[in-house]
């Protein structure tokens, strides 16, 4: 709660064109925003530019921030919109299950990965080869620790869709792990 208060103080100061406050905001949120964006756009240079655009948009629109959500959620919402529109603009293919294996696993198929790696590492790699849509929601829930309402706001989807999308992302993850020889007994 204290961090949220501090964040809102920073946004107020940014609305007053205080660059030091923007630096502080960068210090707090830049890495998380960058990681979120990179897991969508998959290219470091693109992710860095999109991240810069997120904070520039925050700089320009700080005055219209209404504190209905946390600053972190607000920034991730901007980041999601920017990342998705960047993908569309560049006509890049998002990583999906069919194409990801060759990129994410250094040429190994899931079974080989499972033999070479421990379960945790295998799971990390399977998460990496989920569709962008599924990986994004898993990141938001598990890494960014966003609530159902916050995920709904960031992705601009209904609450029930948040729940079902997360459910099917987890199911897909279990299927990928099963294909890699790791049976979790679910679903």
């Amino acid at each position: 709660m204290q961090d949220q208060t501090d964040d809102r103080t920073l946004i107020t100061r940014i609305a007053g064109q205080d660059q030091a406050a923007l630096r502080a905001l960068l210090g707090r949120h830049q890495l998380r925003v960058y990681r979120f964006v990179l897991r969508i756009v998959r290219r470091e240079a693109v992710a860095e530019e999109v991240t810069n655009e997120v904070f520039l948009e925050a700089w320009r629109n700080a005055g219209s921030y209404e504190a209905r959500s946390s600053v972190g959620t607000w920034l991730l919402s901007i980041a999601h919109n920017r990342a998705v529109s960047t993908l569309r603009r560049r006509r890049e293919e998002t990583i999906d299950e069919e194409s990801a294996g060759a990129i994410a696993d250094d040429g190994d198929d899931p079974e080989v990965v499972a033999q070479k790696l421990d379960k945790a590492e295998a799971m990390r790699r399977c998460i990496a080869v989920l569709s962008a849509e599924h990986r994004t929601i898993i990141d938001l829930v598990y890494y960014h620790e966003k609530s159902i309402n916050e995920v709904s706001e960031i992705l601009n989807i209904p609450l029930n869709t948040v729940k079902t999308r997360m459910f099917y992302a987890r199911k897909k993850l279990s299927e990928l792990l099963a294909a890699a020889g790791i049976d979790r007994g679910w679903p």
Partner: protein
Amino acid sequence: MSGIDEQLSEREEIEMLLPWYVTGKLDAADTARVETYLQHHPDMRRQLALIAEEQTATIAGNEAIRPRFASADALLARTATPSSVARSWLSGIVDAVKDLFQAPTPGAVRWAAAAAAVIIFVQAMAVGTLLTREGGSYQTASRPGVEAQMAPVAMVAFTDQASVGAIALLLYDQQLRLVDGPLPGGFYSVRFVDQPSPDEQQRRLAAVMSRKDIVKAVLPSR
């Protein structure tokens, strides 16, 4: 809808809520609903372990991303205004603590890092002072007048909840600088960046004391 269908539906609904139950992000009503279900269906508890594994792997995947960001100066140049230039010395402070906030670690680890960050912070302040206030020329601490200016004016203890960013901003607002610490009792020595009048000193220290959310105690040292 049959009883079995209803049971499956309820089970699926609970399953859908479990990730947020594990991360502690469910509201009170849904939390109670999940816990009631778990009491009557202990087999569902196995899901909690699976979700914990998924969360651990997700965090590891994210934390494996360790970029070295280019200087923020290029970004800030796109936002520059004349009034902001005068405040740019704060950037050194915030850069010094930036890594602390970037690390999404549990609170205990974050505060362990805070001790190191404060040392960096003090060093950055000292270097920043020499560079910005002395026109970048080299000065020794024995220069006439420096010792008096460097003398601490107060000892400050911060609350456990205070973030390093909040502390940095408070010190910046009141033109204070950490010069030593942590000392016994968790106090830090501070001094003024400038040379305010006694009345102004009192006003600023009162402003510091008024921030009960950040400051636990202030003891004048002279």
